[in-house]
């Protein structure tokens, strides 16, 4: 059974595709006119990938300014400053949300500047944009 669908097939067989994805099969859609492809995965798989991502945050302290900075190694645009590491972590979550929103508004520019793993992390933040607790979990700050 082929899990790769054309755009027309995907439109007509969306229920079948959703069922396959729910059962843990990867399904792909190919637009033969543009050669663009899309892969659909289940939330379970998505969470699994997210949980195994090597997320590393760097904490640095500026002794002269007495300010902590935390930034993410993979997406250093996710960073926060604060008088304490906790405050810096909270600000990092806020900055990650703001940055991801800006990314979404300018995907034409930014998608060319970030690699796949960076896009995955930004996408994961966007999927949970209204849930700061979940974003803190994604960034391993919780």
């Amino acid at each position, binding site marked *: 059974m082929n899990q790769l669908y054309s755009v027309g097939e995907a439109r007509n067989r969306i229920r079948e595709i959703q069922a396959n994805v729910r059962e843990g099969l990867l399904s792909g859609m190919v637009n033969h006119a543009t050669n663009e492809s899309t892969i659909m995965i289940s939330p379970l798989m998505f969470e699994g990938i997210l949980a195994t991502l090597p997320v590393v945050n760097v904490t*640095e302290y500026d002794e002269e300014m007495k300010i902590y900075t935390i*930034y993410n190694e993979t997406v250093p645009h996710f960073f926060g400053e604060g008088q304490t590491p906790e405050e810096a972590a909270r600000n990092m979550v806020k900055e990650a949300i703001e940055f991801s929103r800006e990314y979404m508004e*300018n995907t034409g520019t930014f998608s060319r500047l970030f690699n796949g793993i960076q896009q995955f992390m930004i996408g994961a933040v966007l999927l949970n944009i209204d849930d700061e607790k979940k974003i803190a979990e994604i960034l391993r700050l919780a």
Partner: protein
Amino acid sequence: MLDSVTQGEFRRFLLKYHFLPKGRRKTLFVGFIDGRPRTVSFHYHKDRKYIPKGTLNAMAKQLGIEKDRHVDMVKDGSR
């Protein structure tokens, strides 16, 4: 504070490399260094205010430049 950088110095560095602000907040800058497109988050408040070292390192990482070279480039670019 030899290896420290002020917000004004960083702003002049961005201008020298023709970085342009993108997005609503105008805090995301896009430009080219060494022929490669780069992007950096930068919040400008005061010309003479220093950027914390950790933040400066995060910005170097965003630009894909080594820390020491980054400070040198910013200092050169702001003259």
